[in-house]
């Protein structure tokens, strides 16, 4: 596995959104490996697998059946295993309260799902680039807050 490949995971119950997401990464020049799950339970099961590699960035939809994005976030933040993983919230709603609440609970990035594919591509590219900056330039991950 090449170290330059960014490992990205998305949990979203919406099939179309998963499609947009993977297509956007396919069209980007950055080398990424994308994996998607359709709910929080499936995601946590895969992540908690002992020998699974830890994603560089985890994208979480807030509104998911079985286990919501916020529940996943809280669970992830409790574990030391995922402390180097960036967590991005990937949601339809963008109320200030929602955003601040997820940040307070440890999310690093908040993305309001755009209604334009090119915007989506730009946003995802930004996220990966900035995350990579954090990864390579030794920035303090505690202060990593980004809203797109």
């Amino acid at each position: 596995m090449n170290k330059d490949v960014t490992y990205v995971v998305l949990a979203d119950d919406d099939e179309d959104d998963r499609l947009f997401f993977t297509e956007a990464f396919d069209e980007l020049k950055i080398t990424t490996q994308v994996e998607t799950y359709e709910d929080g339970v499936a995601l946590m099961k895969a992540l908690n697998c002992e020998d699974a590699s830890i994603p560089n960035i985890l994208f979480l939809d807030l509104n998911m059946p079985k286990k919501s994005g916020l529940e996943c976030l809280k669970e992830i933040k409790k574990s030391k295993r995922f402390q180097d993983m960036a967590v991005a919230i990937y949601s339809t709603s963008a109320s200030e309260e929602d955003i601040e609440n997820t940040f307070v609970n440890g999310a690093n990035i908040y993305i309001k799902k755009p209604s334009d594919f090119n915007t989506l591509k730009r946003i995802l590219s930004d996220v990966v680039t900035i995350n990579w900056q954090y990864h390579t330039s030794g920035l303090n991950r505690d202060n990593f807050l980004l809203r797109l």
Partner: protein
Amino acid sequence: MKIFVKFDFTRICNKVIEDTLHSLGIGYTIPSFGEIEIDDKASSESIKQLNERFAHYGIDIIENQKIILVQRLKDAIVDMVFNEESQVNVKSSVYLSEKLGHSYGYLSNLFSEVTYTSIENFIILQKIEYTKSLIAKTDLSLTEIAFKLNYSSVAHLSTQFKNTTGITPTAFQRIIAKRRELANNPTN
């Protein structure tokens, strides 16, 4: 049964590198840590093999001088932003080209090619990063931080902060404070 061990990372790394090169029959010398001189005779095939073997140990071959230069450039920028002594009044472009001995145009292109971002953006990123750490760790007001980081006004800093992070400095301050509160009262 548990046993405890201690390591000498330098020796382990050198040993791994030596063994790998040896097994592939490549002639080499190691002038300093993190630097290998290999014989020019080595085929591209054996270099590829070497790359794969190294990857197994988590060792990356830094492809060329460009990447090294970019790394030095980054170090220089971080140093420029975070260390007050090196905060010079000359433009950052002049400062960087003088420090690294290359034209700014060359450095700029090289940087974008390797990192997908511009030097300007990287400088802003670093400055905002410094601002964040000052907000999180000190009691300095935004005005004081703006002055410390050579911003023309608080508004300028706020705008740049918002542009870079998507949130305002005040919101950032609030979120950090709430996170700490949450860490102290984990019941919530």
